[in-house]
């Protein structure tokens, strides 16, 4: 597993996925090649399923475009650990079924080369020689995450003709 470490604060959605592609790339395979293009041009070629990202404060700020969360889920990012997340990105990640862990201490503690392991069920993240815990998500969000994202969650409940 590779950990992509971007310790800076305020990594915005344009850095995660440039706006100029917003209306021509919408699916996982279309998004993949441009992920993090202006932040880390090597990311798209290197990322493997099960990899993680560790970042600073306000990760994902800016646009409501969902290519960052959708694309990172598509390439198999297991979780993102950050000091904090921007609100729209946070919602969007839940909607895509992508696990976000907000833990400023753990994100600060990480140094390049540390082993990192996540146990979402126990709410624990192991960074190097330390274990940090993160609170479970509220039930409303956990239900969406468990179903693999918002639309799968809705699909399970939807009955055709269900309309007032």
């Amino acid at each position: 597993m590779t950990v992509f470490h971007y310790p800076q604060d305020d990594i915005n959605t344009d850095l995660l996925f440039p706006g100029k592609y917003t209306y021509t790339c919408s699916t996982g395979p279309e998004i993949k090649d441009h992920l993090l293009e202006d932040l880390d041009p090597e990311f798209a070629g290197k990322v493997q399923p099960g990899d993680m990202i560790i970042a600073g404060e306000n990760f994902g700020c800016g646009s409501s475009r969902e290519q960052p969360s959708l694309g990172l889920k598509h390439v198999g990012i297991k979780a993102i650990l950050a000091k904090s997340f921007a609100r729209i990105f946070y919602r969007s990640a839940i909607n895509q079924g992508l696990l976000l862990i907000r833990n400023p201490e753990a994100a600060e503690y990480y140094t390049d080369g540390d082993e990192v392991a996540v146990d979402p069920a126990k709410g624990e993240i192991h960074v190097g020689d330390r274990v940090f815990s993160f609170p479970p998500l509220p039930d409303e969000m956990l239900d969406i995450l468990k179903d693999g994202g918002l639309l799968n969650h809705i699909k399970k409940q939807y009955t055709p003709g269900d309309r007032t």
Partner: protein
Amino acid sequence: MGETFAMKVLGRAAGKKVREGEIVFVEPDYILTHDNSAAIIGKFESTVPEGRVRYPGRISIVLDHVIPAASSKHAAGHKKIREFVREQGITNFFDIGYGVCHQVMPEMGLVKPGSIVLGSDSHTCTYGAFNCFATGIDRTEAAGIWITGRTWLKVPETINIELTGAFLGGVSAKDLILTIIGDVGAGGANYMAVEFNGPAVGGLRISDRMTIANMGIEMGAKIAAFPANIETSRYFIALDIEISKAVWSDHDAIYARTLEYDLSDIVPVIACPHQVDNVVPVGEMTGMKIDQIFLGTCTNGRFEDLKAAADILRGQKIHHSVRMLVGPASRIEYLKAMEKGILQDLVTAGAVVLPPGCGPCLGAHQGALAPGEKCLSTANRNFKGRMGEKEAEIYLSSPETAAASALTGKISDPREVLK
């Protein structure tokens, strides 16, 4: 204990008293999407094949981001949207030419005081100018609301910003909100509501309030809201819309933080690359050569903004080393500026007028930058790569500063020009 605006609106929608941090389920009054509707339709159809949207009357779609279509791929997206709104009976559809969604939504009467509007666009928070609880969501969630008509929202804590005084000449709402963002930081209001209070609020025009609320997201805010007052009433009387649901915080509401600004202390400022909170007084940047000036967008493309620029440029020529693009925020604003001779002033000075839409703001078409170029823009974001080229630099300012700088080809203080 008193309640904030956010608590009152969400409490009413949820049908109960709410507390901060609580998650409530609400049915938004409107759900806005734009060119991204093409992708949202794909999600909708793969989730509920042959399905119908739950509330066609609550959906609004505005084509504004890449208009007219820049390529056949963009055109195919627009075509798919036009077919979908016909099939689903969505009447609040505004094709190319109406303008930027955040200008069109209030113009069409879809933003009302005390209502809840969610939009698949981060600058949906603009409607806070109209006492509306409005915030951005992603495409997937928009598809979900098309299907179910509802979603969850967390009741946010609130930051109170108290405004006193009045702007001095050459200073405007953009300078105020950039100053606030510089102080609070790009994530300083993350997850939180921002309320604007104080005696100066009444003196702010609707266009000023829209500029300010528009940029709430640039400090991470969920909403950025104003009370409804005389200016608000005038706006809605003109639209023949009653505003009986207007609501505001109690005098004893509890705020997470209170910040105070005297408008007469505000000076012209610029947000430097590549972050909106990288704000400095114009004085620190004067003399820096720029290649392109962009006056427009949902932040500063209204009649008042175009007029402020025309008042500086009238009878003069922009400097030969700079090009100036003007994007009116909507057809209505475009027509107002045309009728008053504002566009004539700007075009005579050497500006190029774009169709009413998002234009070069998001870097997808129209006025993209070359590597190494510098753009002074009245938009809301200066992120690296935002205008299509990561080796370009974007500086954000007021319309006044943009116009003053157009005259010299260098960043210039509008107060010097207006002397």
